[in-house]
Every structure is written in C-alpha cells, then in structure tokens.
C-alpha cells in the first residue's frame, strides 16, 4: 500500500514540474503576430557596447544604438549619429553629435560618449573591445603590461590613469579625440559597436545595465534580456537619428544550434536565419526559393608560413604551393559555395579592393607550380604539413588542400590538428609549431588598413607568423598619415602589391553571408558586419 502511494507522489511531482512550463506561454509570441519579426542569434556574451564583439550581442545592439557613422552601398562611411567628423591633420579628430535622446528621454551628450569609451579603455574592466581604443592617446597608461613578465605572478599592475588623456568632451555636443599617430581612416573605425555611447549614469552598475540596455537607436528594449531564450525590442517612438524601423518589434531568439533555427525557419516559426548551416546548404536554395540570399562578408581565410621555419623561406616555394591549390574546387565540394575564392589580400567589402592582386600566384596552374618548385630546388624532405585547430571544423578543407598538394606537387602533405585555436597560436608564438598553419581574419572596421596592418606589419597584433618588410611598414604608415582617403588607398594598394611579391600567406577564401527568411518578411539585407539591417526589414 505504502508503495503505491509513494509512486503516485512521484508522478504528481513530475507533472507539477512540467505544468510550471505552461506559464511561459504568454511570454513569447510567434514572430508573425503583430507588426514584428523574429530572427536567430547566439546567446550574447555581454550587452554593453564596449565589451560586445561577438555576433549575437552586436546584432542586438545594432538595433538599440545608432553608430556615429554608417556605411553606404560602396562601404564608404556616412554620418549617422554624428553631425560632423573632422580633422585637420588626421590626428586630432573633432566629432560633433546630433541632437538625440536616450530611450528614457534624457538627452545624449558628448560626456556619455567619453565616459563609455573611457570605461572600455580601462584595463581592469577587461572589456572585449578594449583594444579598439589603443590608437587613442593615453591608452597605455590605462593598460599597463604585467611588470614581472610572463614568468612572475600575473598580478595586474595598477593603471596610472582612469581616463584617456586624448579624449575629452569640449561641450555637450562636441568630442575631441587625439590619436597617438595620424590615421586617415579613423572615421570608418568609429562605425564599430564599441564606439556606441552609454548613458554615463549607467556605468555605475554595468551588470544591471546589461540586463536591459538603454540606447539611442531605432529600437528600445521590451522587457529584460531573457538569458538563453530571447531578447525583445520595440520601435522607439522619438527616434530621430535616421530612418524609423518599418516594424513595431523584433524578437531575437537565442538558438544553440543553427540547424534548429533553420528548421524553425522552414516551419515559418522564425522569420530570419542569418547563417544557413553548411549541412543544409545543398537543399536550402530549393527549399527557400528566392528567400535564400547571399551577400559579401568580411571574413578572410588564409594559410600562413612561419618565418622561423627555413623550409618556406623562398617566396618561390610559397608561390608554388599557392598555385597548386584549386580554391574553386574546395569551395564547391567542401563549402557548398558558401564562401568565395580569395585572390587578393584585401576583402571586397572595403574601399580600395582590387581583384586578383595576388596575380599568377593565386591562379590554379599545377604545371607552372611544379616547374616553379623545381626551380626553387624543391622543398626540404619533400614533406609539408598544415596546422589547424580541431575546434573550428577545418579538418575537411585542410585535408582536401593536402590532397591537392600531394597530387599536383608530388609532396607528402599532412594535416596536423591542434585541439584549440589558442593552443595553435601559443605554439606558433613560441616557435614550436613547424609547418604552415591556417588563420582567419574578421574585419574590425571597413578599411583596407584593417586587412593589412594587424596581419602583416612588423608589430601587427595578429602577425603570428613574424612577417616583416620595411617598405610595407613604411607604405602602411604613409597611408595612415595621408591627407585624403584616395591618397591613403593608393599607398595601401602599393603595400598590398608587396605582399603579392613576398607571399607571406596564401589567400584562400572570403566569407559570404548566406541567409534566408520566411514568407512573413521582405527586404532582408545583411551588412558587411554580418548583421541583418533591422530598420530595412518589412512585413510582407
């Protein structure tokens, strides 16, 4: 008797737990109801602009904020929240902001910008976007390096300053930024997420702010950030910094798996999927019809040669390897055309891009490749290896590349997996990794310089392979200091030509946004930051 009672109890408990689930039904509606739409994102890491560099968070913030500059169809910067951005010498920049209000009705002031940027630049805040501020004067004082180096205990040194000396609010509407060195393309930099303002008062309690960020953009928060589930925003009535959104609300639904999001799209339960998973790339065009779209994205995938490895020191060897790779074939077979072949060092999304700057060296020509390699005296041991990080899903294309090199150059080629990307970088930095290795680059700001400086200049932040060329460095710097955009681009293009001669890396692929949408919406576009343009979307 007692037995049956206790079992009965367990059922009741279990049912009660599931019954609680019913309460959530009124929290969320299907994207199609009302005048709104839904799209998928990954759970944002943070929701404060200065610490948001991943895609989920920046997509949400792109609705809540209006950047100082936006980018037109040619990817040239146009003023948005800024009235004017000027500099006589490319070093001291004066930014005047337009009249605008925060979602709580208070006016946006220059001080809000300054406070937010200072918060981001202050080392101990450990903001993800911290390094964007390193070009501003006074950054180093706020981010001291560990005094006892790698070996000693990692006790962070106390920064000498709490504010950037090169940043001040001249009056309510004017911000003055002094850079460490002149930089012609700074206007473009200001379009990035980390340069959004934050209400100065909110910085006192950042944690609370992130649960429901207040911005000055076309949408405002509707309720709080519901972790791992959704973020909802609604149109902000007093928005005057640009075009008003054509819908009343947007629901950013948080997905763990792109395949699930895609299934929801097929069922018309979700309106926009910003990345069609590779697994369904073959069937998606027919399943979605003209609601399947692609656009150029900023990512750049390449294979790098470590300068410390003598094996690859002859540029002819590097060119031969590059010429023996059939990029189009790999993209078709492995990536189902979800990326495009790269034959330049700079992405097509930035001004100054030219096709085929890599020239001969990136053209698939096995015969010429073989000849060139023979001229260079072959490769030591007739054996090469390509390193990749196993956590990034690179196995397949690296193997395919290796197969092509085996076939076309008669080399022995090994794909060498390192568990994590961080580990690969550490091995390369300590010169412990022998062989070529894969790398990827995601643009920070739409400028040619962003594809050249960090990756190939002698002190570049992501120049892991140790490439160094004085002429390249000089041209890059001259471009930064140039008076006009055109002049700058000319210098940078000359710098790119040096890369084509030296071939420190093999350009392989440029990214593509491959996205789809439901029958409920139209005018869905994605910009070069891999974000859906929220204000353009219309209900159909």
């Amino acid at each position, binding site marked *: 008797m007692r037995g049956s009672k206790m079992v009965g109890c367990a*059922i009741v408990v279990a049912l009660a737990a599931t019954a609680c689930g019913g309460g959530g039904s009124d929290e969320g509606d299907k994207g199609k109801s009302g005048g709104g739409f839904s799209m998928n994102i990954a759970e944002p890491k943070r929701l404060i602009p200065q610490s948001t560099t991943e895609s989920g968070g920046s997509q949400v913030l792109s609705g809540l904020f209006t950047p100082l500059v936006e980018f037109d169809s040619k990817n040239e910067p146009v003023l948005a929240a800024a009235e004017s951005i000027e500099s006589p010498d490319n070093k001291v920049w004066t930014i005047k902001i337009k009249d605008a209000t925060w979602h709580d009705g208070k006016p946006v002031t220059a001080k809000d910008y300054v406070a937010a940027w200072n918060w981001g630049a202050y*080392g101990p805040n*450990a903001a*993800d976007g911290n*390094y964007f501020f390193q070009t501003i004067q006074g950054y180093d004082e706020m981010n001291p390096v560990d005094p006892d180096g790698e070996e000693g205990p990692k006790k962070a040194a106390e920064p000498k300053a709490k504010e950037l000396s090169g940043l001040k609010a001249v009056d309510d509407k004017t911000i003055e930024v002094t850079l460490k060195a002149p930089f012609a393309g700074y206007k473009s930099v200001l379009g990035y997420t980390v340069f959004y303002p934050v209400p100065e008062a909110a910085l006192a309690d950042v944690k609370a702010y992130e649960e429901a960020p207040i911005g000055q953009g076309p949408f405002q928060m509707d309720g709080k950030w519901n972790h791992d589930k959704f973020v909802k925003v609604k149109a902000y009535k007093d928005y005057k910094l640009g075009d008003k959104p054509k819908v009343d609300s947007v629901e950013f639904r948080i997905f763990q798996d792109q395949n699930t999001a895609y299934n929801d799209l097929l069922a018309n339960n979700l309106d926009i999927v910003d990345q069609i998973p590779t697994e369904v790339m073959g069937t998606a065009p027919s399943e979605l019809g003209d609601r399947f779209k692609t656009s150029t994205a900023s990512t750049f995938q390449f294979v790098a040669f470590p300068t410390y490895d003598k094996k690859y020191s002859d540029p002819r060897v590097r060119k031969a390897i590059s010429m023996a790779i059939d990029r189009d074939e790999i993209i078709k077979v492995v990536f189902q055309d979800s990326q495009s072949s790269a034959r330049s060092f700079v992405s097509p999304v930035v001004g100054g891009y030219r096709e085929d700057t890599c020239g001969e060296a990136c053209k698939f020509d096995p015969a010429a490749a073989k000849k060139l390699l023979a001229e260079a005296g072959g490769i030591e041991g007739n054996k090469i290896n390509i390193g990749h990080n196993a956590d990034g899903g690179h196995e397949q294309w690296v193997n395919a590349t290796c197969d092509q090199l085996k076939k076309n150059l008669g080399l022995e080629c090994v794909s060498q997996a390192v568990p994590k990307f961080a580990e690969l970088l550490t091995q390369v930095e300590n010169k412990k990794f022998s062989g070529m290795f894969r790398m990827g680059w995601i643009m920070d700001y739409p400028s040619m310089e962003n594809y050249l400086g960090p990756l190939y200049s002698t002190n570049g932040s992501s120049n892991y392979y140790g490439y160094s060329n004085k002429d390249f460095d000089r041209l890059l710097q001259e471009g930064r200091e140039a008076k006009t955009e055109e002049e700058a681009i000319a210098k940078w293009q000359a710098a790119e030509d040096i890369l084509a001669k030296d071939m420190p890396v093999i350009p392989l692929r440029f990214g593509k946004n491959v996205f789809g949408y439901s029958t409920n919406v139209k005018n869905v576009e994605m910009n070069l930051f891999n974000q859906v343009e929220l204000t353009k979307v219309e209900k159909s």
Partner: protein
Amino acid sequence: MGRYVARRLLQMLPVIIGTTFLVFALVTAMGGDPVQNLYGERPVPEGIRAALTAQYHLDDPLPIRYGYYLAGLVQGDFGTSLSGSRPISEMIADAWPETLRIAGIAFVFEMIIGVAAGVMAGMRRGKFLDNLVLLSTLTVIAIPIFVLGQVSQIFLGVKAGIFPVSGTNEGFMSYLLPGLVLGSVSLAYIARLARASVAENLRMDYVRTAKAKGLSPSRITGIHVLRNSLIPVVTYLGADLGSLMGGAIVTERIFNIPGVGYNLFKAIQIEDGPALVGFVTLLVIVYVVMALVVDLLYAVLDPRIRYA
C-alpha cells in the same frame, strides 16, 4: 530510518568535495587558455589578460584556486562564469527548471508506458504483443538519439506542424516532444527489463502456491508478481532520473531548450572551469539524492529489506 537517511546525507559531503576537486583538476589539466577562448580568434591585449587572470585566479596553483572555490561554495556562491561573467547560481536557477520539465515528461512517459508495455509483454510471452514490444524497443534502442530527435523534429514539427519546432515559447507543448524523445530510449530499456522480470517471477514457486491456494489471477499478477518484478525497474528508473536531470546535451541542443545540458556543453567548449564545476556539483547532489530515494523505495517494495 531517520538515522540511515542522515548518515547517507552526510556521506554526500566527501563525495561532493571529491568530485568537484576532480573536475577542477581535470579542467586545469586540459591546459587550455580560457582567456584566449573567450576572445575567439582575436589577440588578447596584455593588460586585459592580466586583469582577467587576476580576476579568476587563473595563475594560482590548483589547491589555492580550489580553496577559493570551496570558500565561495560554502557561502552559497558558485562563482562567476568565464563567459559573459554571469553568476553561476543564476545560470543554474535559469537552466534547472527547463531541464526538470523535459526530464519530468520523459520520466512519466517512460515509467507509465515502459512498465505497462513490459508487464503486458511479460505476461503474454511469445504472443503478438510481446513480439511487437520487443521489435519496437529494439528499433528505438538501435537509433541514436540525435537521429531520433532530428527526424521527429522535421516530421512532427516542421512538416506536420503538430509540435512547436523548438524553443520554450509554447508552454507544455514546447517540452512535450523533447521529453518524449528523451524518454524513448529509457522506455525501451524499462520495457525490456520489466518484461524479463515479470516473465521470471511468473515461474517462481510462490506464484504456483498462490495459484494452488486459489487466488484470483489479477491478484497474483497485480500484487505479488508486479511488486516483486519492479525492484530492478525501480533501480533503473532511479538512476535514469538522475541522468535525466543532469540534462540532455543532444536533445536540449536539437530542441533549443536552455537547460543544464546546454550549459554543460557551452562550459566544456570554452573550458569554463567555474561553470563546469558548478553544474557538476549540482549533478552530483542529484545523483546522490536519487540513489538514496531508490534505496528507500526498495524497503517499500520488499518488506524483507529494512534500514535501521
């Protein structure tokens, strides 16, 4: 029995300390670089690295880091996650109810259907129903859960539109399909376990005696056989409830249920030590409690077992 329960609960302490330390040590032994993981494929500025390292005690020796963790745990502080820097107690509070809901559905489903199917099959051995149960459970056991999940999502969710495809927006219905998928594999095992157990008990001497005494067949199977047959089933159910509540990484992922499994998966991916240890601590507690409940249920089912 009170003393027995108290003693078992006290035994949890060393188990929790031991397992958390083990997980802690394993995460450290992975030798990855959590700071770089947080940054993805971007370089980490020196100053930021120093700040984060200090904040999470990443360069202290293992025992000291573990000490920091235990000290927090005693004060009810599970620490902060490395990703997004949310308090782990808050993450657990959000994730746990989600997992409970699908685990609850799965448990009820596998218990009622599984036991019923198993008992009926056991009583009609060799007949059509028995063969049907054997065949269908074999099929379910043979199909990996991610295939089962995705196929049911596409056919019942996308194509037929009977169930929501994913998410938790539609209340009970949202949890129903994932719960059924999650419970189906255990259901197959339970049905087979119950079938074998019933069949075995039906051949026992006490059944013959009862028959000879003239007891009605329904009383024989309903009270005597069933009660004796359920001991292995209850053992399995108890252990299974423990693992169900530990979250289902695959099922939660397919149906986009932000439960414990999802958080574990994320924590493992970025080597988020604090979150990993936090969730594992929770799992350990659940397992130990479930084992205790199962032991107590034995006494209920079999009067010969007593705990003093």
